[in-house]
């Protein structure tokens, strides 16, 4: 099934939409001067000319060539592909939210402001931080914002020497990239044999040139950094700050709080932990949360309660300023607010508990068939290595991933974290029932057997999709990125 580009179905003169006719007085329209010629556009843009049904069929067909959480299990590690409740979609479509302009008089947007304020209160309680901002639109935008606050904090102290940010080798790629965008130098911290931060290496790299350590906890191997209190003490003793990448908060949500671990600033991925849909790559929402130390540096404006209702507070002299055009991805964090209301404190705790239960159950059942290099203290996700299959049968992590597609599953994250060879990173989330986990386990066992028996067949996978494996070299060489 190949769906043409809509432009390829275009027929001159066909219409999918008609605007109401211009209803101004004819004389006015006749006498209206157009834009001066030298400021006017030359020529037209090539857009499809199709009927309304053409548009409907086109995008409906395209949607059938996409696998979402609603289609089936999506154990994509570090992405927390949990169920996205339909109530969130319903609420995000309410005209009382969708048709509110961001610059309306503050007295007419009290509903929106109360959502922002209440959500920040809940997120503060959940993370153990003192306040935050919902302006960042995604996780890495949150990282950018958090690191900028760290920068502003040290500038305020007159400390210009702290130009380094320490980042474990196992970290997400956004961590070093966000540090670089903020003008920091990145220094890598090694992992120890257990897959955790190597304390000795960390301590040897701490100095008065270090601004922060960025840490994901549980880390990208799905392991809890059990030395976190010692890490926190060492970092703070060196005068540096501790940054929490909240990508994996689902593992400990409601059970433990980054604030209690000594983190000074963090970002959340509401599109992971708090169940807002990923939308095919966004829009997400990446709030930053801070302790009292960094609170003055939060983006502005803040939302503050008044005697009656809420107001914007722009009077924040130490604020790093704005990081997005208006108030962040409102319709996204609105869904997260709805999720928190549905779950409550007990529900969030239970979600973390079952996410961890599911991951451990999967790891246990897969262990006879797959090597799991780091097993001690698995939380919400774990990483298997198919290095031995590659050595003996020539079957790679990519081959396993593509074979899973033919079994009807979205593959796990592959080739990440970088410290595991031929890695497949599996995160089932709390949404999957044991039956669904068992079915996945069976599929994984079938593929493992195939890898031994008939490795060539895995090289051909997937065969059930509209296209097979694509020529990536050609894609780069041609760089055909538009019609």
């Amino acid at each position, binding site marked *: 099934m190949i769906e043409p580009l809509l432009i390829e179905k275009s027929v001159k003169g066909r219409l999918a939409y008609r*605007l109401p006719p211009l209803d101004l007085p004819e004389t*006015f329209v006749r006498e209206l001067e157009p*834009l001066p010629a*030298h*400021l006017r*556009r030359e020529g*037209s843009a090539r*857009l499809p000319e199709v009927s309304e049904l053409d*548009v*409907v069929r086109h*995008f409906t067909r395209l949607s059938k*060539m996409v696998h979402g959480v609603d289609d089936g299990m999506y154990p994509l590690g570090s992405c927390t*592909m*949990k169920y996205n*409740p339909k109530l969130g979609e319903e609420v995000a*479509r309410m005209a*009382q939210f*969708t048709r*509110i*302009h*961001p*610059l*309306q008089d503050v*007295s007419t*947007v*009290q509903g*929106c402001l109360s959502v922002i304020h209440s959500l920040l209160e809940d997120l503060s309680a959940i993370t153990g931080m003192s306040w935050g901002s919902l302006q960042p639109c*995604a996780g*890495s935008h949150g990282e950018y914002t958090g690191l900028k606050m760290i*920068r502003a904090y040290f500038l305020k102290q007159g400390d210009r020497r702290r130009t380094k940010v320490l980042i474990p080798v196992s970290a997400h790629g956004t961590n070093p*990239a966000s540090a670089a965008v903020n003008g920091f130098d990145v220094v890598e911290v090694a992992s120890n044999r257990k897959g955790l931060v190597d304390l000795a290496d960390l301590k040897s790299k701490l100095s008065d040139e270090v601004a922060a350590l960025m840490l994901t906890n549980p880390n990208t191997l799905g392991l*809890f950094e*059990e030395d976190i209190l010692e890490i926190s003490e060492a970092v703070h003793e060196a005068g540096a700050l501790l940054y929490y990448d909240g990508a994996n908060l689902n593992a400990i949500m409601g059970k*433990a709080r980054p604030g209690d671990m000594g983190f000074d600033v963090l970002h959340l991925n509401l599109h992971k932990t708090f169940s807002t*849909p*990923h939308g*095919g790559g966004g*829009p997400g929402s990446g709030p930053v949360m801070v302790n009292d130390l960094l609170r003055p540096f939060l983006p502005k404006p803040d939302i503050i309660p008044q005697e009656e209702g809420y107001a914007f507070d*722009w009077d924040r002299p130490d604020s790093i*300023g*704005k990081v997005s*055009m*208006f108030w962040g991805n*409102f319709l996204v964090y609105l869904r997260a607010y709805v999720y928190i*209301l549905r779950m*409550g*404190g007990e529900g*969030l705790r239970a979600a973390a508990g079952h996410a961890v*239960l599911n991951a*451990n159950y999967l790891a*246990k059942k897969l262990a006879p068939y797959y090597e799991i290099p780091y097993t001690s203290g698995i939380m919400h996700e774990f990483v298997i290595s198919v290095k031995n299959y590659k050595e003996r049968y020539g079957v790679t992590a990519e081959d396993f991933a593509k074979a899973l597609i033919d079994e009807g599953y979205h593959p796990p994250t592959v080739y990440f974290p970088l410290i595991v060879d031929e890695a497949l990173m599996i995160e089932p989330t*709390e949404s999957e029932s044991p039956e669904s986990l068992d079915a996945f386990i069976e599929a994984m066992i079938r593929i493992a057997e195939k890898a031994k028996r008939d490795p060539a067949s895995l090289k051909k996978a*997937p065969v059930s*999709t509209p*296209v097979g*494996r694509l*020529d*990536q070299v050609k894609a780069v060489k041609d760089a055909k*990125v*538009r019609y």
Partner: protein
Amino acid sequence: MIHPYIPHTDEDRARMLEALGLSSIDRLFEVVGEELLLEDPVPIAHGRTEEEVRRMIDSIARRNIRGIPFLGGGSYDRIIPSTVQALSSLPSFVTAYTPYQAEMSQGLLQAIFEFQSMVCEITSMDIANASLYDGSHAIVEAALLMVNAKRGAKRVLVSATIHPFALEALQTWVLGAGYELEMIPEKDGVADLAGLDIADDVGGLIVQSPNRYGFIEDYDGIAELLHEHKALLAISADPLSLAIQRTPGQWGADIAVGDTQSLGLGLAFGGPACGYMAVKRPLLRRIPGRLVGMTTDGEGRRGFTLTLQAREQHIKRERATSNICSNQALAALMTTIHLSSLGWSGMVEAAGQSYAKAHYLAHHLGRIPGLEVPDAHPFWCEFPLVFQDANHLETFLRELRNEGIFAGVRLSTLTRKDTDESVLLVAVTEKRSREELDLYIRTARRVMG
């Protein structure tokens, strides 16, 4: 059963724990340590049922008040075909992740490819990415691209007429990052580009049209001047305006940026919006964010995939062109459906009607004593309404609100400058009816008379 979002029954839990040889889920959390484990749930409200939450949200939503918006300042109330909501809500689109597994994501990849193509067509550029967060972020990424593209570049020239909030986002970016912004002053409401001085350490110039006041700017000769100094030109533009005004590509710009909010996204209290960036071919390997390319599979079938990923953070880490990972994919899809429905003729019609209706309102308001519409420069769908006496503005807004009209955005709301208190930005889109326009005019006459 604990919660509708968690499927495990007591028996399920028992069976799974037995397989793990554990007595309870708590055992799995021992590694966290007693010192850190919370004894009680975090202090937020108890979970509610779906119906209870629905009721609660309904009552919160009622505290928002809607009016007939003549509000702009970067977000515009436009006509959106019903196809946009219906098709962008298809659950596979909504609940998919980034299309890393191309074979399983062809529909999404193709839609992004169509988005990139349409952005290129509209801006007259060569390469467009899969989206950025919003218009202000697109401007920040343009600045970052400029200083990275030219050896020794430390400064970016910025017109004082770009959107005030986008300027603030730029100022946030330079904070401690090792770069500098140099403001290009405004003259009569447009960027004063005469006598532009381009030093060796200047990476480029960022301008915006329609600018913060709604004026269309003239960039004749600017790209050539910058290129003589190996600097780049970035033009930020509302993409719908490009159905009428000269495009970034036609001005010779290297980078086109903006926000597709005006193409199918609605108001949504400001977000999600959807930043776009399009560049000329030589900047292909420098553009930030995701790019979808067309290729073939082993059997020669056409397919789409994320490409040129060596620019991106998950490959290049600290040497990536940007830190962006998640973008605004679903919003970009909405824009793609919107443009597929409107077509070029619909875009021209929407932009043209906005122009006509905005000028109709400006024409009538400008003749009311005490009000002035500056006419030094052409505008498209938004114009500044200047009050001779700033004190009248408050009454004006209140009286129009009583008629159900949100009359405009106070410039001082955006700039927080006392000197801007007498200026109201009035935006008129194709969605405003003659009746609404005439009600605005009648009420304005009454209030000012």
